């Protein structure tokens, strides 16, 4: 077993936050697409399309592929890759798909069940293990010191998405949709 250092709470938190930001990117782009509608009805139509092509499939993608499959094949997700982290079993090998699936879904729910105490446990545990790690026999190790890159990627993606969301909100609040909504609610028949 290669002697990598166990990853502590903050680097793992940063990696998870980066994962979240990466997974939010399609949602952000869809928000731009939806809010670019010319009318309220077109907005609703685009919303339905977004649900069909991303929001429901993304639930399957995240629970079956992004976490479990990537971790079982490569030991890492994009967020963890940019943070120089790897998820392994006690022997330093990749988890099986079943274990990775359990860890990323049920394990995470378990750790989060009591106000996230299972995640905070990483900070206190001598081996830096969370409840989901203990439940599945996994551990997260640092393979390379990359936290400055992690921070940079996080800031870029976060700022980009912040900009896109502000554009989406601007489209809704200054475009034809807000006028249609106001007209609808102020009509005597309503």
């Amino acid at each position: 077993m290669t002697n990598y250092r166990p990853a502590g709470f903050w680097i793992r938190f940063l990696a998870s936050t980066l994962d979240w930001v990466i997974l939010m990117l399609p949602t952000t782009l869809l928000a731009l697409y939806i809010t670019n509608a010319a009318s309220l009805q077109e907005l609703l139509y685009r919303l339905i399309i977004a649900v069909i092509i991303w929001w429901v499939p993304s639930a399957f993608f995240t629970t079956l592929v992004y976490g479990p499959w990537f971790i079982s094949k490569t030991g890492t997700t994009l967020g963890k890759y940019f943070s120089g982290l790897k998820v392994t079993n006690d022997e330093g090998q990749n988890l099986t798909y079943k274990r990775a699936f359990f860890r990323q879904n049920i394990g995470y729910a378990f750790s989060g069940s009591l106000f996230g105490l299972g995640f905070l446990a990483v900070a206190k545990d001598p081996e830096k293990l969370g409840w989901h790690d203990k439940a599945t026999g996994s551990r997260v190790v640092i393979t390379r010191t990359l936290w400055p890159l992690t921070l940079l990627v996080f800031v870029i993606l976060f700022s980009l998405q912040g900009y896109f969301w502000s554009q989406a909100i601007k489209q809704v609040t200054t475009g034809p949709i807000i006028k249609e909504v106001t007209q609808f609610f102020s009509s005597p028949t309503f």
Partner: protein
Amino acid sequence: MDEHNLPPKPDWTISELYNKSWKIVKNNPVLWIFGLAVAAGVGLNFSNVDRIFDSDTKNSLPATPSFQNFTNGQSDALGISATAPWTNFLSQIPTWIWVTLGIELVAFVIFALAISIVSSAWANGSLISGIDAALEGKKPTIRESSEKSFKSIKSLAWLTVVPGLVLTLVASLVLGTLAAFTAFVPSAVKVILIIVIILLGLVTYYFAIYITLSRIWALRMVVLDGKGGKEALFAGYRVAKKKTWSMIGLGLVNTIASIMVALVPIAILGLLFFGGFAFAKSVTVLSTILITLAITFGILAVIVLMLLGGIITSFKASTWTIAYKRIRNKYAS
């Protein structure tokens, strides 16, 4: 007094079970966490599946469909209700979109249900393993309890789903078919059918109760003795038949005790709010203090009730596990 005339010693007494369970649960906070996971258990949100609209429009979807915009002025002039534009809008959306959305949502619900069942099975298995370790004098850990539970997940999931599902399907089919027949038969036969339906309903209820009772032992047989789901269920049923009233007694006491414990924070909260509103007009300062205390306590109560949920669940599981270990060699082998 002749010893042979004495009633047989019960396999367990509730005070014994409660004393031992309390000692185990008090000293092993790991069990509270598993208890919380079990209590969180199967909490399903069934999404509404959209209705499939009949549409006269062609199936291919234009890139940006042009919806007719009905202004509210037009609607008023024509005397059409405000919902008419929306009904028109919905009917312009091609059917394949609704079908796809429906299929995706149904698939999502089934997927979420499957994960929930596996999660519940794992949590139950881990809790029982942890309690068993504590009963043997070891300190239960998340790792060991979880590893033991992994070995039994398939059987535990089977126990969670299959017996109840089979009973529900059979009962629905039989009772539903008989109920449908009542519409087509003469009155005399109708009365007989209704009596048969009621009797079958009672039979269904009997099986439902025994499935619940059998499952209590079956879960422990799977985790502690390595039995398969089906084998454990039938073995559990045999034990449940012999111990029915003792089980119902213990179950009732457990339920009443849980309600009483959980009621304490709720009662305090209720009193504070009641006092706050009762004094609202007469003693405003006291009312404000009471309501502020109630809100603060309410926030704490959420945390306390969550933790209590985990503790109560692990406590109840512990009573059943201790009871099982008492009768294991006598009835369950």
